[in-house]
């Protein structure tokens, strides 16, 4: 069975609430069948609006949304057959777990035996068998979350939308739920559109991530590419940690450029700069800069340690380097035999391929 690469399609979608400001601008996004796609972005970036438009609770101001080739902009939510997991679970508080799960089946006039079977299957999927008669208030947050997931899946929807479903859970539970949702997705192959502002959640769960900012998709790619190769400084800043240098391109060739900072020059990988004289922000992941590198690296500088913060599995070192005192280094604890002391001078090096010269901030 060939998968439809345009199973869900946002075609030039605009959305405005007040007729003055566009919260979603000219959105063009294709979601493949069976894909786990995450809309990631800060609050107010338009990602939840996109989800609500797909669910049918908001109408696009302009453009069309297509589901499996059909325009759905005029179909009311209850006829779209899209499952949804809400931020605060939205379990019906006056119904038992069984009744909550049976609700989408009952409104579809499914036979009683069939309902029992499907509810049972959905509950075992989230390992909550035996909780049928509980009320939602008698469940823990994690259990409520799993009921909400089961309820969104029990009627075999083609697409499941999840709106920051793990936002209310504590860290450990959130991580285990991330894997659980990922495994459920893998085992039943449903298309999932997931909204979050938590980048680590997005990175661990998704096939592809759409980074939203200011109503626009800034970058759409798989997690590794997103982290390793951000295409602009917003994405670089938003995903993971990031050291930045603001400067001006003074020399450029195919895969290398020289950037002039306040009182020094560094070599960088030209991503969005094209010519000399352009302003740029150079982005460098903290783990790509090494202390006393043994290999030959084309950026070598000396900095002064300002602060050392112990983080268990790694140590963070804040340096004064190249005129900025915000340069962060991540030192894995396997190399903690290094003596790191405040106000000590150390040598730092990184490859120019890892220093990405992006659009200026």
């Amino acid at each position, binding site marked *: 069975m060939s998968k439809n690469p345009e199973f869900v399609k946002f075609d030039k979608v605009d959305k405005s609430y007040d007729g003055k400001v566009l919260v979603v601008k000219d959105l063009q996004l294709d979601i493949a069948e069976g894909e786990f796609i995450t809309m990631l972005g800060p609050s107010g970036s338009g990602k939840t609006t996109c989800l609500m438009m797909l669910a049918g609770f908001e109408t696009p101001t302009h453009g069309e949304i297509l589901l499996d080739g059909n325009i759905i902009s005029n179909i009311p939510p209850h006829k779209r057959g899209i499952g*949804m997991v809400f931020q605060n679970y939205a379990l019906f508080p006056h119904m038992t777990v069984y009744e909550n799960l049976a*609700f989408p089946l009952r409104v579809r006039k499914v036979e009683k035996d069939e309902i029992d079977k499907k509810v049972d299957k959905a509950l075992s999927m989230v390992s909550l068998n035996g909780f049928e008669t509980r009320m939602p208030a008698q469940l823990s947050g994690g259990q409520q979350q799993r009921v909400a997931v089961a309820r969104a899946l029990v*009627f075999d929807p083609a697409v499941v939308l999840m709106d920051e479903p793990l936002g209310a859970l504590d860290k450990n539970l959130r991580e285990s739920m991330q894997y659980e949702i990922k495994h459920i997705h893998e085992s039943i192959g449903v298309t999932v559109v997931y909204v979050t502002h938590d980048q680590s959640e997005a990175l661990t769960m998704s096939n592809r991530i759409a980074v939203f900012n200011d109503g626009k998709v800034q970058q759409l790619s798989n997690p590794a590419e997103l982290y390793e190769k951000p295409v602009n400084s917003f994405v670089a800043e938003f995903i993971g940690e990031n050291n930045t240098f603001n400067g001006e391109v003074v020399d450029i060739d195919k895969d290398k450029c020289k950037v002039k900072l306040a009182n020094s020059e560094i070599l960088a990988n030209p991503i969005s700069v094209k010519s000399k004289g352009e302003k740029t922000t150079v982005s460098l992941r903290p783990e790509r800069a090494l202390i006393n590198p043994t290999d030959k690296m084309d950026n070598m500088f000396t900095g002064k340690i300002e602060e050392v913060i112990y983080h268990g599995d790694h140590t963070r070192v804040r340096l004064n380097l190249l005129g900025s005192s915000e340069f962060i280094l991540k030192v894995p604890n396997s190399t903690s035999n290094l003596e790191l002391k405040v106000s000590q001078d150390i040598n730092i090096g990184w490859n120019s391929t890892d220093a990405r010269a992006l659009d200026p901030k």
Partner: protein
Amino acid sequence: MSSETKQILTTDGIPLEVSLKKAEKKNKIKAFLLVAPLLLFLVITYIFPIGDMFMRSVDDRMVTNMLPKTFKAMENWQNLDELPPEEVYRGFYEDYKLLAENQQHGKLGQRLNKEKNGFNTITKKLFRQIKRKKIDESASLKEQINKIHKRWRDVEYWQAIKRTAPPYTASKYLKGMDMYFAADGSIAQVDEDRRIHRILWLRTLEIAFFVTLFCFFMGYPIAHLLATLPMKYSNLLMICVLLPFWTSLLVRTASWMILLQQQGIVNDFFVMIGLVADDNRPEMMYNKVGTYVAMTQILLPFMVLPLYSVMKTISPSLMRAGKSLGGTPFVAFWKVYFPLTIPGIGAGCLLVFILAIGYYITPALVGGASGTLISNQIAFHMKTTLDWSFASAMGLMLLTGVLVIYWIYNKLVGVDNIKLG
């Protein structure tokens, strides 16, 4: 198991429970002192008057105190179907003579007349005989009194006196239900054309029920709108809902009188748009219509506010969840939203119903004859007939009715489910 029953001690050897009580004691005293003024206020203004009302409604000691010798003698009156023995006559004569000397005999006559019609005449006749000293105390008083009027020879009148003997009576309550103690002491119904109270009770229930219903159907959408509109509009709407609260009840009722009367604004409007003919203006006041309209408007906020407070807590994502799971908007409303508003519906209906059942001023002003309620009857007995014990009895019956409704409600919905805001 033994570890559970073993007493846990604090480090200095005092049992934990004792120590806890000691620690909590101060807080408990503080808490009690904080509520004490309110408690006192409630006892003085609520418990005590209700107790007094109850005493008043069953008190029948007047005759008991007026005719002590009569009732003492009546203890030996064996065959109640025959006239009482001589000693009863003598006791009654002596009691009555004493009353006549103290100018109290008129009261007795009136009181006995309520028990059995015709007493006033024959006691007055007896009084005149005593005044003229026509009664020979050494001869048989039974014969002499029997000669004064034929009614004295009627055993029913003596039975009526005997019925007034107990110091307490439920007769006022029976009267409130259009019943009375018949001559033989059994409970009987008053004649059909005189059963006014039962009609009033039924009408009160009916009006309270329909006013509650109207308030519910009008209040539910308003409350929903209030709970879902953006803040700046909902605040304005809230003021519109609350405005009647801030206006005097009398003013509001009077405005309804202006609006609803036959030459009033509503009728003028109906004539203007050609709904009714000018010479055939409908009566919308001084009947049930007026009572319904005015009471519904006045009690509406009591329905809207509890509903609003409940609806405010219902997350809009629940309705969305209902729809996204495949429920039509109606199904989502009926299966998800509506059940969650039941605590508010319960509170609002209970509040409106209880207020409506005891409503007084509005039906008195716009109700006319067919729109008055039991509370107007109570007021009538308080102010016009001055039969306070009857008014008290009906007041207590109303209170009991309210408590019964509350009890039924508690059984059906559960009082802890009520949400007033």
